[in-house]
């Protein structure tokens, strides 16, 4: 973890609602993908964002980068409020905020050579002298573990792990201070996954970039992240230091999520909390606490209002649950 605890990103009461067509009949419904989410991210920190599919974690990542318009709320990046920035203003900032996508097969232009792909941020943001750029690309490729012979190759000549290395190189070459990593390893094989995770960790150690690391795999998140936020149905239900969260999960959903992961250990038999049912649709979320339909500690209080995040130990372990004793 970095000693420099300066705030890099602050998100306040962020909402992202999508209007979706009704199946039958006229009119539109509102899908609340992200609802009232607040968190901060410090320089050089890795914040994990976990949750099941459809809980809004990817939407949150993209909204923070302003790839989606913000419905309500505030995003402050590096001291400047970027909530109402337009496309042109965003472009100046984008070299400091980059993204690594999930599917390395879909996120590289099949007609561009690897060299061109990695160089494109340099051209877009006008970084470095023109004649130096190719050297910068070579250096970057070396950093991500690819030899310079890949410069003139096309994406289809490479394996998934190598492509993901290219995606990382492209995100890192403009020397950003903040990178959103949207499930960067879930499309990769187990043995390759470890290589890419190690690479991302090395890059982070070296350049002190801050990651917003989105993943559904808690063991991966534990390996890379300093702090972890757990999302459910568009809300952050718990946020804590990584070790603290695993040692002392407080929210019933976090507890269930942790107990649901199969552990590769044959001696350990755990008491598993099996959640009943499925995640409700974000178009018709339950009244009150979003988790109440599957919660084991459901009571009348849960119907009343959506619980807010509260600091429970004075150390930044925040939980949103009305049944805290």
């Amino acid at each position, binding site marked *: 973890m970095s000693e420099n605890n300066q705030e890099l990103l602050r998100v306040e009461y962020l909402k992202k609602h999508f209007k979706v067509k009704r199946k039958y009949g006229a009119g539109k419904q509102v899908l609340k993908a992200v609802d009232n989410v607040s968190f901060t991210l410090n320089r050089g920190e890795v914040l994990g964002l976990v949750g*099941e*599919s459809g809980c809004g974690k990817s939407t949150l990542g993209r909204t923070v980068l302003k790839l989606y318009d913000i419905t309500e709320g505030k995003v402050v990046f590096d001291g400047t409020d970027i909530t109402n920035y337009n496309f042109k203003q965003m472009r100046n900032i984008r070299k400091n905020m980059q993204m690594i996508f999930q599917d390395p097969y879909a996120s590289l232009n099949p007609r561009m050579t690897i060299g061109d792909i990695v160089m494109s941020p340099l051209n877009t943001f006008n970084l470095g002298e023109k004649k130096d750029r190719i050297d910068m690309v070579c250096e970057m490729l070396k950093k991500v573990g690819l030899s310079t012979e890949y410069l003139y190759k096309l994406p289809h000549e490479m*394996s998934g*792990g*190598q492509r993901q290395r290219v995606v990382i190189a492209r995100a890192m070459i403009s020397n950003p201070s903040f990178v959103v990593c949207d499930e960067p390893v879930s499309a990769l*094989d*187990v*043995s*390759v*996954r*470890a*290589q890419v*995770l*190690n690479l991302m*960790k090395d890059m982070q150690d070296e350049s002190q970039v801050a990651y917003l690391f989105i993943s*559904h795999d*808690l*063991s*991966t998140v*534990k*390996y890379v992240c300093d702090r972890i936020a757990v999302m459910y149905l568009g809300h952050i239900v718990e946020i804590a230091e990584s*070790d603290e969260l*695993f040692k002392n999960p407080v929210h019933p959903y976090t507890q*269930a*999520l*942790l*107990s*649901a*992961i*199969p*552990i*590769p*250990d*044959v*001696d*350990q038999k755990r008491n*598993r909390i*099996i*959640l*009943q049912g*499925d*995640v409700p649709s974000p178009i018709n979320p339950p009244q009150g606490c979003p988790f109440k339909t599957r919660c084991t500690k459901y009571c009348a209080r849960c119907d009343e209002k959506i619980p807010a995040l509260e600091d429970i130990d004075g150390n930044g372990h925040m939980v949103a649950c009305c049944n805290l004793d």
Partner: protein
Amino acid sequence: MENSILEVKNLKVDFIMDGERVNAVHEVSFKLGKGRTLGIVGESGCGKSVSATSIMRLLPKINTIVDDCTSIKLDDEELTTLSDKEFQKVRGNRISMIFQEPMTSLNPVYTIGKQLIEMVQSHQKISKKDAFETCVEMLEKVGIPEARKRMKEYPHQLSGGMRQRVMIAMALVCNPEVLIADEPTTALDVTIQAQILELMNKLKEDTKTSIILITHDMGVVAEVTDEVMVMYAGEVVEHDDVKEIFHNPMHPYTIGLLDSIPKLNQNTERLLTIDGTVPTLKNMPKVGCRFADRCHYCQDLCRTESPALKKVGTREVRCHFAGNLKAKEDK
């Protein structure tokens, strides 16, 4: 293992790709005991799904060659010599399969009920009414609420977890002796995965069906299976009791695989990795060990001679140096 229900010997599958004959599965042999669960693990392209689908005879005939010396015995009955028509009586009835994608393996234009009833009626002489009741019962068994109503619904009306339950119901409705589950939980969320795994464990105890579970998730293997077969590049590299494998992996690939997953219950400073990637079917090393290029312990012998599957106690392992790898670690 005296009572084996399924015995596969020398399974060898070749594909024809661009006019070239490439080997996808090489000499896979195993016995599945009655009521046991065998896990097959490996990375994508290691031949685990191909092995399973070739047992089910679901591979396209046009570009697949299953070697003649292959023998697949179900309860001492040879399956490879059956004609396609005879095999249809086995497929779905005595051996059935659950596929990875519950979204695509159900037919979207027929109701759940129609698909389930078709399954029952094609294997049993039974009236439609009785078949309907059997199916409702089965749906209830796999934990689908309001089963009677669900029978009239279409796949798109169900969630992913529910669809996978329907797939399991469909696979088990004829009381098969062997169930092949090909990555049954990979497409599902963790909390749903936990539900499905619990369900499969429960059904196994109730019906005494033997299961072949194909997965790449070591966690799932540790929780559900009795024995594990690790595959790499079309070959079985290690096969033993699940506890033995996790406590004492012998093949360098298994060791690497276990080291490269982040553990929840301990703090890992740095993950150990296996260098390189799985060779593609066309680039498979022709001589020597198929894992040699990625192996930390590789010696000259590994490049020239393919290791055979050795027996060490109950363990089967395909490595020249299994058991005394440690000495060469500093190399």
